[in-house]
């Protein structure tokens, strides 16, 4: 369990990183928090010729409010974002981040690293898709911006080229009409989810403007479902006054069919495909209800 030989560089700028990546393309890998890369090296599952350590890069943002978004730079640790006051502007981050691994892992692991790694069972890619975050990418030609929902292409695979660096991610901040919910099921506390859902509902008065649910751990990438129609039918004529249990019970009539579409993983010893469908169906009904009620409460000025 010792890494094979590799060259190690520690550039101080994004341009330097991109230069090293280009020079050794496709055999260079970025090291940020190392929570995925270092075990992979130790198990000799990857043999990059060069490790480009980005921890000394100076020209990436930290955690910054920028317009209607919270921008998080490439070297920001998950634990830093979790505890940052500005994170309150993106409630889904607050809800989801405690579920990422254990505190020790979050203290090292970076936000952008998790996105770039693209594990289909990870929380942050799903959150990014659910709230339609945007990813800033640097390469030798300059920079480009990619919406989260088109960033993840397959398991552990993204649109990032071998000579590109993910420099930051921008999460849109919440409005007074937004409600969020997050839940995941894993076999043990801190494990990757067998299945999880993140939900964003926007409601103005009786009108459901948005109801996006992104499921993770169930397919090659996070998968997002527009739940407006189902949620409208579940809340029915009474709207926000509908009994909470009645909403969930009604949703439970629809969510098994949705889960069947969303859950395409073949499953493993921890969770068969059928079991993950059961989980998604149950979590979707619960969390859609919750996010809806939170959206309604937010509209009504309840914190």
């Amino acid at each position, binding site marked *: 369990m010792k890494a094979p030989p590799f060259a190690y560089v520690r550039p101080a700028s994004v341009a330097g990183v991109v230069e090293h990546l280009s020079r050794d393309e496709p055999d260079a890998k970025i090291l940020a928090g190392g929570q995925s890369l270092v075990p992979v090296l130790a198990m000799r599952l990857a043999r990059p010729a060069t490790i480009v350590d980005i921890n000394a890069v100076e020209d990436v943002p930290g955690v910054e409010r920028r317009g209607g978004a919270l921008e998080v730079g490439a070297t920001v640790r998950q634990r830093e974002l979790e505890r940052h006051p500005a994170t309150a502007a993106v409630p889904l981050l607050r809800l989801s981040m405690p579920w990422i691994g254990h505190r020790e892992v979050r203290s090292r692991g970076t936000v952008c690293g998790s996105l770039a790694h693209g594990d289909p069972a990870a929380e942050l890619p799903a959150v990014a898709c659910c709230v339609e975050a945007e990813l800033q990418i640097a390469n030798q030609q300059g920079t480009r911006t990619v919406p989260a929902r088109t960033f993840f292409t397959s398991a552990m695979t993204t649109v990032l080229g071998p000579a590109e660096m993910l420099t930051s991610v921008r999460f849109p901040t919440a409005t007074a009409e937004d409600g969020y919910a997050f839940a995941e*099921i894993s076999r043990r*506390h801190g494990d990757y989810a067998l299945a999880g859902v993140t939900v964003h509902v926007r409601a103005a008065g009786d009108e459901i403007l948005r109801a996006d649910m992104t499921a993770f751990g169930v397919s090659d990438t996070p998968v997002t479902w527009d739940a407006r129609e189902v949620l409208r039918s579940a809340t029915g004529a009474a709207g926000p006054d509908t009994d909470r249990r009645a909403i*969930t019970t009604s949703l439970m009539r629809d969510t098994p069919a949705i889960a069947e579409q969303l859950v395409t993983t073949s499953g493993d010893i921890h969770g068969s495909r059928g079991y993950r469908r059961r989980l998604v169906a149950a979590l979707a009904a619960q969390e859609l209800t919750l996010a809806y009620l939170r959206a309604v409460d937010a509209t009504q000025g309840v914190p």
Partner: protein
Amino acid sequence: MSEAQHHGRVEDIPLLCGQGRFLDDLDPAGPTLSAAILRSPHPHALIRQVDLTRARSFPGVVAVIGPEEVRAGLRPFPLTTRVAMEYYPLAIDRVRYVGEPVAVVVAEDRYVAEDAADVVRVDYEPLPTVVTARSALDENASLLHPTAGTNVATDRTFVFGDPDERFEQADLVIDREFSFPRYSSTPMECYSVIAEWRDSGDGPEVTSWANFHGPFSMVPVLAGCLGIPVSRLRIIVPPDIGGGFGIKSAVYPYVALMALASKHAGHPVRWTEDRLEHLVGSSAGSDRAMRCQLALAEDGTFQALRVDLVDNVGAYLRPPEPSTLYRCFGNITGAYHIDAVQIRARAVVTNKTPTGLNRGFGGQQLYFGLERLVDEAAKDCQLDPAEIRRRNLIGADAFPYHTPTGGVYDSGEYHEAFERALKNVDYERLRAEQREARARGELVGIGIATIVDPSATNIGYVDLATPTEDRPPGRQKSGSTEHVRISVDPYGLVTVLLGSVPQGQGHATVARQVVADRLGLHHDNVRAVVSMDTESTPWTISSGSYSSRFAPLVTSALIEAADRIATTIRLAASVHLDVPADELKLAESQVRHRADADRALSFRHAAGLVHWDPGSLPAGATARLYEEAAFTPPQATAATRHDQINSSLCYGFGTEVVVCRIDVHTLEPSIELVSTVHDAGTILNPVLLEGQIRGALVHGLGGALYEELAYSGSGQPVTATFMDYLCPTAAEASFPLVSDHLETPSPVTALGAKGCGEGSSMSFPVAVANAVADALSALGVQVTSLPLHGSILHDLIGDRDDGGVPAPHPARAASSG
């Protein structure tokens, strides 16, 4: 409560302050070379060719050994039975499991060794695989060891009483098939070995440092492989071992391998197992397929038991296997009065990693079948699971109780202990709450297990794997001996030498307490030194830390040795005080007259007299403050001609009541309440005892809900990292626990103590299974194996539209907010 029971463990401060002395941190042999092991990626394949040339010329590499060197330099390990299934520490002509060593590279450091191992080329010819115990029995199954002509390594049938007649006359027969998974204990520290081969003038000798905890019956096995006399093999165990739980008994094949590597390198060689190696290549409890039958009378009393056990011991019958089948032989009828038994005991080889000791050794497998069967019987008799046990537990007036298989249960109050476990959580109220919960559509179950907890193994049970006719008198095995040494220095300070090779249990703390209390000394005046060096520490075949031997055996030896020290101290004081020695007693650091406390001499002074003034001792007395004792219980005798054996010296009792809730949506089981009661005889140290019980419970929790060393249908391990092999953590182990004790002292140990480190490892998995079965009883689900988790339960219940569970309600919603 004695003084030490208020103190913490003497082991804790150094361990907590980073002062532990674990082998990988030590350089006892001076600078060493590092070894890396190339392992088989195939579950079953012929080795056509191994090309070591590139690895040998790799910069920094000192030696590389492969099949050729092992065949030339080592012998097959002597096996427990005569089956023709040669076992070497490295694959010779075929690989039989993923992770089997194929070559060893010795280099200046581990990085270089691993780099060079990467360039070893092995040409494999894959063969059909055998993975499960039942498939190994198939007559068309691929043979792992063609020389044996079968995959069945041992097959014996035992009959005690007349079970056939009982089954014929029974009012009710329960007949079930169960399977038990393989899982481990995943010690924090993996295997670690340093070996040095030296050719001295009078033949080769091997010195090895290894975190080996016994049984020392493996030392002759190891010497046999090395082809050297046992006394030319020196095993030194480091002062600290980071957990073992039985798993580290299987480090011994690597001692042989590294000794040979050292011979080729001409230098001491170090090998430290990493976690990947550990999870695919070390050891585990065996998985077992079993059929269990119980004959009952109308009133629910047990009339006879039949078990057909098939242990999957992996690719080789690695000693001490097939002991998983026999460790519980004397207590195979558990805590119940059953006097007619039939046992068929088979071990089969498959393309999985070899198995061995794991906390609870043999007990978790046995009791999973037996206690699930008892619950099934209760259901068919329409009796409460507690009531059927009440009707069958061995009565307090029956002790010492002779089991049909030869066990002699030394002491117990099973009914009282059992009722206490029920009462401590108000069992009737739990049942009432369960009825209410069920009416609300919730899935709640209550599970019970009652077991006999064997400790202080009589190693004679290994003979049972051999047919009676092949065990002539004079060629039998028996014994349960432990050695200790106590010395007193010229200033009265006492040192206890323990060769008990603990791995964190706290032996030194208890040994110090036992000796100080026996000699009437303050605990600060006694020091326990943990040290095992086969060249200087007294040891024998049965030595080692396994089968809960410390409390019953080591403390008995300590009492023997301490009493001899006391005799000498009293003799010395008797001269000075002019009082007959038998009128003196040891108390409060003094030797004093029994009737007149003023006539006293300090212990220190008396010890000083022996050292400084031996001429003053009475005629015939020797100036000896250095005593060794080898506790040798006469009850640990060889198996009889009729295959009966008292397979352990002591038999404790343990019981658990478990409340388990299953989420109606996610089907995740959670433990809501546990009541446990143990009777381990005299309690030596309540804090350490409680620690053992909690540890064993969490180990059992792992087996029940989380852990399995799983293999794909083709024989590939699929739980090869801690991402997939799931040990319960503190977050999973925080269930409410009510733990209680009874003390019925053992009449066969010096202090009445029995072992208690393993009991709940044996009982908790099946108690949880019974609770889950109870929770799902309305759904017609059969719980026949472990682990039990949401996905498994989903598959059991079936993928029906309604999920087979009551109407959903948003029970979990609040948890995510």
